[in-house]
């Protein structure tokens, strides 16, 4: 539907110009926003409508700002869109008293314009949200793959959650860099927090370990729970000569013995950690 009759449009322009203060006051009431904020948008809208090219860039910019600031203050996108629609209501109240066909056509045109702008704030909100989510995913990737030194010459990499290609890449890079930085000769990769080990996860683990070996470090995989061991055997994955241990404590004891810190064969106290939820 395209309603863009010059007469009606001019009528609305006239209304917006004549009753600016009244409209903004009414708009501020329905939109629950400050009049200052709205005046800026109102003026941008007026000059956009008056211009021949109908360039709404300024209005969109201001609305995007409004949408973002409201999102930060915890408003829902519907609230923001409704705030924009508030102007329609204010204008309608004026139009009602002067219901000529031209004015009504003009109002419908104006109404479509405001609908578009309302939807635009919605889009801005969604885009801003998506951006935050992407940033958080990246942060999580960084945060969730720490490499910690648990003893002189022994590093630990506790893995929690899903191990996909992107994660593995980060883990591998961080581990290899840490091996160079610390000169460690042992690394323990703990998979207590990995809910399921399938062939892809296993392959990623194997690659990481081979890469660490190339750099002269010996890797131990720890945190293999009974059900994971069951699945690995059934799948037919072979870890070859890679040392695997049930708990991080066992792996640490193994690494300590290998590095000559621990010489007795005394059984270390065992600490079992359970993490079931995917």
């Amino acid at each position, binding site marked *: 539907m395209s309603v863009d009759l010059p007469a009606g449009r001019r009528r609305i322009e006239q209304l917006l110009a004549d009753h600016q203060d009244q409209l903004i006051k009414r708009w501020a009431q329905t939109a629950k926003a400050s009049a200052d904020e709205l005046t800026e948008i109102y003026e941008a809208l007026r000059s956009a409508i008056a211009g021949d090219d109908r360039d709404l860039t300024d209005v969109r910019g201001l609305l995007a700002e409004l949408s973002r600031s409201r999102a930060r203050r915890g408003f829902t996108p519907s609230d923001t869109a409704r705030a924009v629609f508030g102007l329609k209501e204010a204008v309608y109240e004026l139009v009602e008293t002067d219901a000529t066909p031209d004015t009504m056509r003009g109002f419908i045109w104006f109404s479509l314009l405001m609908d578009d702008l309302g939807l635009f704030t919605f889009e801005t909100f969604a885009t801003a949200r998506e951006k935050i989510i992407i940033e958080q995913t990246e942060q999580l990737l960084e945060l969730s793959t720490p490499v910690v030194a648990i003893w002189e010459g022994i590093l630990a990499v506790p893995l929690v959650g899903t191990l996909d*290609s992107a994660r593995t890449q980060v883990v591998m890079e961080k581990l290899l860099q840490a091996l160079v930085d610390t000169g460690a000769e042992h690394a323990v990769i703990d998979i207590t927090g990995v809910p*399921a080990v*399938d062939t892809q996860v296993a392959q990623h683990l194997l690659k990481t370990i081979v890469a660490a070996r190339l750099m002269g470090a010996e890797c131990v995989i720890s945190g293999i729970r009974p059900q994971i061991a*069951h*699945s690995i055997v059934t*799948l*037919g994955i072979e870890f070859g000569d890679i040392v695997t241990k049930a708990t991080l404590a066992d792996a640490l004891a193994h690494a300590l013995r290998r590095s000559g810190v621990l010489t007795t064969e005394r059984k270390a106290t065992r600490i079992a950690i359970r993490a079931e939820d*995917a």
Partner: protein
Amino acid sequence: MTAAREMPIASNGDVVLVRQYVRGVAVEMGLSLVDQTKVVTAASELARNALVYAGGGAVRVETVENGRRRGVRLTFSDEGPGIPDVDRAMTDGWSSGTGLGLGLSGSRRLVDEFDLESAPGKGTVVTVTKWGR
């Protein structure tokens, strides 16, 4: 009882969602911890196959009942290139890609019932069932 649910497999994120949902259903069906992990691993394997080799697909997760026993049935379907030689694809250590070559054969061992239908150009449908003890 949980109703059957169709889930899309279009990204790595979807594989994670499938895994989580299958775990939830397996817990509800009273599968033991080992069996839960097995069916979840098989789901992960088959979903990733659909994603990697067929560019995506869908899975139908449903609960099944057979007298006393309850279980989970998963039907993975894709419209990818299909598997030209099913026998070879089911062999341990053989992979047309860069994987370990254990996905299909390993999945068959992880579940109780395994059915694979595929023809070149026709896509692939894999149906697996895991029963509680």
